[in-house]
């Protein structure tokens, strides 16, 4: 049975999609990620798609679903490692991945999550009582 491993990295969860996504796998990933988010209290989900040759609207929708669920669970999603040909194709396809942040690699993705965490902590400290 195929599986996409979810790795805890600092206060983020790292998911590396290396295989061609299909329906059951997408649903399993969405379920498992939301469970892990609650379990770990992670503040970010980094999805590495450097292994994907093709991102069609099905995969795009899966990414959007994950980002939506993560947001409700107080975590930010950053998609990293998109291949240049995938980026060009996505734009032409018309898929803009609304609400999803992107970064070139995992390191920069983590930096985005950490920066956002800082902001949140700051806001809470300075917030009105």
């Amino acid at each position, binding site marked *: 049975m195929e599986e996409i491993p979810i790795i805890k990295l600092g206060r983020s969860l790292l998911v590396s999609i290396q295989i061609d996504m299909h329906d059951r796998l997408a649903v399993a990933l969405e379920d498992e990620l939301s469970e892990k988010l609650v379990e770990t209290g992670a503040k970010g989900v980094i999805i590495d798609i450097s292994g994907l040759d*093709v991102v069609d609207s099905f995969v795009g*929708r899966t990414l959007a679903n994950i980002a939506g669920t993560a947001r409700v669970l107080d975590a930010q999603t950053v998609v990293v490692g998109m291949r240049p040909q995938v980026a060009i194709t996505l734009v032409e396809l018309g898929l803009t991945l609304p609400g999803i942040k992107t970064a070139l690699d995992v390191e920069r993705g983590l930096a985005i999550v950490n920066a956002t965490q800082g902001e949140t902590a700051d806001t809470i400290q300075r917030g009105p009582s």
Partner: protein
Amino acid sequence: MQRRGKRRTPFNVARPDRFQIRSAEDVRRVRQEVQVRAMKLGFRAVDQTKLVTAASEIARNTLDHGQGGTVDMEFVERNGQFGISLTFEDRGPGIADIAEAMEDGFTTSTGFGLGLPGAKRLVHEFRIQSETGRGTKVVLVRWS
């Protein structure tokens, strides 16, 4: 018989290869088969990705809205240019209003509504025929 020196065609010209589209696994197979052909024909990486992505969108439509169907993959040549032609056919309910279905954002609940117009932008030739109650046929061609 193939003459020496003539460019070898990467797959059967006379008879297209036909694949069934009955499950999500079949849609994945279609992506792989298109990718292999595009590679063999020497498509650049970005052109491979465009054609495979377009094929994936239409194959999924065939499965989700056409109740499954087939795709014929053909090697085509015109004026010395080589390309790949993909013909998707289903006997599903058909599309009542093609113009509407070709609009960006038209969606039937499952996607972003990019399937048809998105796929059209990713290929050089796009033809669609549909009849209510009879089915839908979509032809995609991309030149190398």
